[in-house]
């Protein structure tokens, strides 16, 4: 089993009021010097079998058609290295 991570973020030109609300709360928590926060989504896909080019191509299709709405969002797909190690450390 391998883990593929799909990160989805609003496009830079799209207003993100949730991110702004988080950013505005930071000074109250004593965090200074953070000028902008943008909030996105992370999907962790546990893939049965090998993550070869064909599997990644299918996941990219899935991300483009379903996990992200490319009218408003960008996405990245990456294979998480050492996923099993992290699992064992829990």
């Amino acid at each position, binding site marked *: 089993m391998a883990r593929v991570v799909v990160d989805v973020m*609003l496009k830079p030109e*799209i*207003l993100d*009021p*949730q991110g702004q*609300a988080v950013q505005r709360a930071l000074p109250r928590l004593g965090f200074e010097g953070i000028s902008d926060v943008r909030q996105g989504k992370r999907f962790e896909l546990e893939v049965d079998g090998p993550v070869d080019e064909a599997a990644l191509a299918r996941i990219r299709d899935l991300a483009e058609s*379903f*996990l992200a*709405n490319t*009218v*408003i969002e960008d996405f990245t797909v990456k294979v998480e290295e050492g996923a099993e190690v992290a699992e064992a450390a829990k």
Partner: protein
Amino acid sequence: MTARIGVVTFPGSLDDRDTQRAIRLAGADPVALWHKDKDLKQVDAVVLPGGFSYGDYLRAGAISRFSPVMDTVIEQAKAGLPVLGICNGFQVLTEAHLLPGAMLGNDHLHFICRDQKLRVENAETAWTGDYRQGQEIHIPLKNMDGRYVADPYTLDKLEAEGRVVFRYLDMNPNGSLNDIAGVTNEAGNVVGLMPHPEHAVEPLIGSGRTDGLPFFTSILKKLVNA
């Protein structure tokens, strides 16, 4: 002769029954459609009602858009079947790319529920023929994800082609670009809007206005005269 207008029920739809009632009040026959059925029961038009289908998980309308009924709705809408999406239905239509743009959370991050003033910007779609161009109407608005966005090229194209069907007046309740409350596709058979015409069809309830009823009489006339 009258027309048969389907209303799809998704898991989490809220306004399917109100929509059926509005269709009946307008003089047409409402037909209940189920999200798991590909069969549209030979209806003459379809309404995707408001609500929170699939809990708005992932994005509002994103999961419903892949339901079996939508395969048929998308195919037939492209062939000219009149389709109206109200609120969550509008979100489903943008997710299905039957309408351009996308819906995002209100810019103020709150749920909003109010009687909203709108201007009818296009009285020539399948669903707006009984309005006058430029008519000002009040119908209820109630949503969390009502912020209409599209890229500048798409916005210019919509404005130039008269495809903005409704615009918010007096105030912009959710940060929608160009105060857009509803849009149509190129052919004018698919219309989506955030406010709820089905909640403004009887003088006894709500604001006492019936400003939403022309949606349903418009489509009836269009179908019967076709």
